[in-house]
């Protein structure tokens, strides 16, 4: 075997070793979800066993699970749509009609993300309580839309800037007013960028674990809350918990895999592309 091939195998073993090690906890959880509760807590822990779907069935039978899952869906998709509707016009304006203030405005918007949520926990909680928004989905939806807005604006801005200005000018010469430019030209061309931005926003909302834990309960709680409510399980519960968790994270693992590159752009605010 020549040197290059040997090296390749060394990297393969090393890298896969690390990858499997890092992935292992997730793997273990998924494995556990297919065990019976007894097997789940048996010592020594078993790698090979007769898999069963009873946990998934059990979780499905508990109607509660689906209402929490529905909340997660409603909140992630809903807040993303709201954020997009608010962000697209603003980003369009800033990308194509920049002023001297544009850069400052963008930076300021980003800066609102740097506020530690715990710093404003008290007033938000009190406002929500007084407006009867506690444990109400729409309340949390607004919060999510607002905390994701800076990232959505930022990412859309960088994607819009990639649309050549001359194409929009050609549209204008063809008789397009602002609305036409937006719908016939900008949105179709920026669609991939909008899709990745949405993906990222959905992931961030789905996994959000501060406001969801403090502002909701059984009515509006998303899956983060649902899982958290099992923080002191009785020993016989783990297999089902694993099944519920697996279902809770599966879609996001897929989304995350699809959106890796956008994640880098979005979460580093464009500093690394």
């Amino acid at each position: 075997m020549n040197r290059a091939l040997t090296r390749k195998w060394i990297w393969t073993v090393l890298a896969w070793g690390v990858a499997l090690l890092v992935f292992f906890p997730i793997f273990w959880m998924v494995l556990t979800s297919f065990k019976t509760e007894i097997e789940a807590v048996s010592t020594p822990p078993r790698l090979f066993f007769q898999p069963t779907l009873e946990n998934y069935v059990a979780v499905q039978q508990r109607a509660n699970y689906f209402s929490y899952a529905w909340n997660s869906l409603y909140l992630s998709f809903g807040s993303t749509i709201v954020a997009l509707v608010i962000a697209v016009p603003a980003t369009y304006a800033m990308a194509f009609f920049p002023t001297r203030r544009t850069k400052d405005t963008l930076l300021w918007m980003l800066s609102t993300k740097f506020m530690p949520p715990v710093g404003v926990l008290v007033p938000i909680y009190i406002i929500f309580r007084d407006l009867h928004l506690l444990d109400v989905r729409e309340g949390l939806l607004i919060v999510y839309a607002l905390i994701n807005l800076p990232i959505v604006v930022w990412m859309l801005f960088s994607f819009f800037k990639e649309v050549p200005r001359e194409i929009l000018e050609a549209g204008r010469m063809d008789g397009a007013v602002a609305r036409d430019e937006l719908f016939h030209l900008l949105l179709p061309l920026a669609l991939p960028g909008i899709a990745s931005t949405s993906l990222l926003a959905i992931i961030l909302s789905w996994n959000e674990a501060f406001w969801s834990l403090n502002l909701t309960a059984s009515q509006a709680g998303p899956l983060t809350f649902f899982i958290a409510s099992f923080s002191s399980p009785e020993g016989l519960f783990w297999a089902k918990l694993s099944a519920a968790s697996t279902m809770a994270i599966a879609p996001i693992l897929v989304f995350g895999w699809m959106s890796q590159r956008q994640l880098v752009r979005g979460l580093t605010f464009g500093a690394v592309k």
Partner: protein
Amino acid sequence: MATVKIENVRKSFGQVEIIKGVSLGIEDREFVVFVGPSGCGKSTLLRLIAGLEEISSGDVFIDGERMNDVPAAKRGLAMVFQSYALYPHMTVADNMAFSLRLARVPKTERDRKVHEAARILQLEPLLARKPKELSGGQRQRVAIGRAIVRNPKVFLFDEPLSNLDAALRVQMRVELTRLHDDLKATMIYVTHDQVEAMTLADKIVVLQAGGIEQLGSPLELFHHPRNLFVAGFIGSPKMNFLRTTVTAVGSSAVSVALPAGASVEVPVEGGSLRPGSAVTLGVRPEHLLTSESSKLRGEVLVVERLGGTTYVHVRIEGGEMFVLQVDGENPIRMHDLVGLGFATEHCHLFDEAGLALQRSLRHPMADQKTRDRRGATGA
């Protein structure tokens, strides 16, 4: 009718003034070329007419109507961009039909117009393709087709040939000339290439640093440049310039000194010149000759043979370089010693400020219209 009038237009970006008070008029069906070096403001001027930039002060009239506050979409103009700016997500046919779709033209009418334009430009086999599948020249034609379909009052071209290779550029120049003749439309064309300007234009506007240096027909600019800048800009290779002094001022000619004791008599009106005044002599390479009897001699440094013509770079005693144009059959070689002769009737003289002195005789072709435009101002 599609006339354009620009009155004292100024444009600033922030504190920097790009267009410094430009006024000009464009007649119906005229092909006008804005030409000038990079940064002179020609594209900006075009965009002001198009409505893609806002005018800082002054007025733009199209067909007598003031257009300052009218948005680009409503001015009834069409523009062909340097980068073509085709809509990447639409087919060629949709690209060309877009403006009609926005104007809510019915489908049958749209298709008819698109096919008509496609026929003129030989785009019919490409109608279902997307821009990324086309070559540069083809995209260029689609951009023009998009403009034709609109049947605009004025066509605007922003350096449309700059991104094409040399051979294609020559071919497209010819096509544009014929297109102008076919469509009989008013066209405003921006380029930095003076060859395009000379070959395409009815009227050339030479711009520099935001102002008009000269405005006139191609031959008028060629034979009667108003100043040093225009003289040096129009014509390739560039006009030869020599700084010298006046030796004598006559009633219809001025004599100037040449190195090595030679002198040449230039047929211009003397004006306020006196013997001793500093002037610049200008003579084009095609108006210089080799002359055995000339007192002005020099060494040939470079010979550029193009086949049909040859350009000879000569360094005369005194150090100045002259470029001569000679016939392609001329066997002249590097390091030969030659004498330079001047076709005096084609020499130009410029005063200290760079302004041309009025020539005693006007060139017969300078006032000829390049096209017989029926119903226009008359030749």
